């Protein structure tokens, strides 16, 4: 899968960019705040409909204008080529177009283009709050499963409604008859989420463990497990998961009413990382945490390739300077010759001469991208 052209209009500091990358390694060289990361951000935005740097879409629109546009032609080997576009507006909701056809749901664009992004905040995934790991799971599984996107959207809505109802019951002291219907809706969409996460994590764990031990020289072991609300076997059918989840909801009903919120479900689950049996979040060194984060991301490339049938686009956003030589080499080894890759660096000395030799180099300066 690779991007043939990328056009940006009023996106970040790009007033008008037409960028034609190579289908191999693309090295974007420039000082900070010149727009290197914005190119990667735009690609990731088309893949997921979200930015990896901000949760506010308005930040993406060039200062002083009201509409921004991101457009790309994507070459795919397993599916037809596709043209993707997102239009951002200060006045209205963003618009998604696939092959120039406007889609009513933003989520429709997710999965058209697969991308894995590496950035400096990846380490927070290992050491930060569970919500960051759930976000990782949601973004990554969404890219390979439209069904997951759908279930996630429906789940959030049911959860909102159920929490509203729980607060209402708590304050009025009267149980309304519809709580059971909300429970079964939550169980239905929740079970789809849990089932997809179990399969994803099962595969991710295996790949990440292999990659981690090669990064750490084989003396350390990374284990990735899914800490889920429902105790259920990996191969259980969704109906069984839904039944178990529904049962759990009914046994915890009193507690949920008392707290005025839903205390169990995939919105509370976590991805647990351990190194040699110890929780990486609390006990790992910063170096180990960084390696674990990279192992997860590299593993994700394999998982995505397996699900989509072709390699994803890889985006390395200012991460090279943070890595030691061995990890840098490993990252490039896994991606080179397989994935269309975009790297941002402030200088070519940040990457191996062998990579520089095969890469296409672009200078990025104040919103202009020039091939060298």
């Amino acid at each position, binding site marked *: 899968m690779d991007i043939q052209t990328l056009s940006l209009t009023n996106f970040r500091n790009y007033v008008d960019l037409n960028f034609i990358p190579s289908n191999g390694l693309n090295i974007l060289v420039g000082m900070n705040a010149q727009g290197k990361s914005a190119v990667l951000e735009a690609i990731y935005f088309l893949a997921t409909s979200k930015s990896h740097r901000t949760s506010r879409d308005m930040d993406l629109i060039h200062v002083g204008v009201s509409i921004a546009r991101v457009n790309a032609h994507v070459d795919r080997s397993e599916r037809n080529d596709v043209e993707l576009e997102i239009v951002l507006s200060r006045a209205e909701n963003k618009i998604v177009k696939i092959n120039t056809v406007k889609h009513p749901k933003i989520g429709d664009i997710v999965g058209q283009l697969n991308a894995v992004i590496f950035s400096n905040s990846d380490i927070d995934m290992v050491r930060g709050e569970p919500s960051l790991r759930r976000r990782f799971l949601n973004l990554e599984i969404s890219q390979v499963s439209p069904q997951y996107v759908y279930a996630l959207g429906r789940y959030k809505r049911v959860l909102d409604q159920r929490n509203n109802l729980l607060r209402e019951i708590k304050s009025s002291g009267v149980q309304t008859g519809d709580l*059971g219907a909300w429970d079964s809706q939550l169980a239905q969409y929740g079970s789809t989420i849990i089932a997809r996460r179990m399969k994803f994590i099962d595969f991710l764990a295996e790949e990440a463990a292999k990659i981690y031990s090669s990064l750490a020289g084989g003396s350390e072991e990374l284990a990735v497990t899914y800490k889920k609300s429902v105790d259920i076997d990996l191969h259980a059918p969704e109906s069984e998961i839904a039944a178990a989840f529904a049962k759990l909801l009914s046994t915890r009903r009193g507690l949920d009413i008392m707290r005025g919120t839903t205390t169990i479900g995939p919105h509370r689950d976590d991805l647990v990382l351990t190194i040699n049996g110890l929780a990486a979040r609390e006990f790992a060194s910063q170096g180990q945490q960084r390696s674990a984060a990279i192992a997860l991301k590299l593993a994700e490339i394999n998982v995505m390739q397996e699900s989509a049938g072709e390699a994803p686009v890889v985006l390395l956003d200012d991460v090279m300077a943070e890595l030691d030589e061995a990890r840098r080499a490993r990252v490039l080894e896994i991606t080179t010759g397989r994935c269309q890759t975009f790297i941002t660096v402030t200088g070519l000395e940040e990457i191996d001469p062998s990579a520089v030799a095969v890469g296409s180099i672009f200078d990025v300066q104040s919103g202009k991208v020039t091939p060298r």
Partner: protein
Amino acid sequence: MHYAKPLAKLVSEFEKLPGIGPKSAQRLAFHILRINEDEARELANAVMDVKQYIKLCPVCFNYTDQPRCEICSDAKRDRSVLCVVSEPRDVVAMEKTNEFRGMYHVLGGVISPMDGIGPEMLKIRELLARMTDGEVKEIILATNPTIEGDTTAMYIAGLLKPLGVKVSRIAHGMPVGGDMDYADQATLIQALQWRREI
């Protein structure tokens, strides 16, 4: 913006309407200014007539200007099948298909805790009351396939199950998360044919 008082009043009334922003409200108000007096009176009368003559049918809770709505008073319609919808506009959508010959029941909304709408605020008690004479053999739950529409259907299905009546839910072919009144007729017909028991 400074309008003469009566004009300002009209603009602000239009602004209260759903889907009308300040710009459209202004455009509508200026349009009214330009039309002749008869046209304006006709519009005003139409608004007042709707308020005066349109009531809810006491049987199905659809809008009507009669003591009982046209569908409920039509002797040729099949009284053994009842189609449950959330809004009167859904009856209009269903009727346009010319496929359904049964009766309707309009709930007047869907269950939505975040909007403060609980089951007791919908015409659900009235629906159960319609079941007592045993004439209705089948119920089609045709609320929109939104989260709230689904939950409402599920809740009603739970109440109807013990009564031994056949309960089905339209589903197939409906655009996901879509509204019934936006669905094209072919889709609706298909949805009706492919209804499943719940």
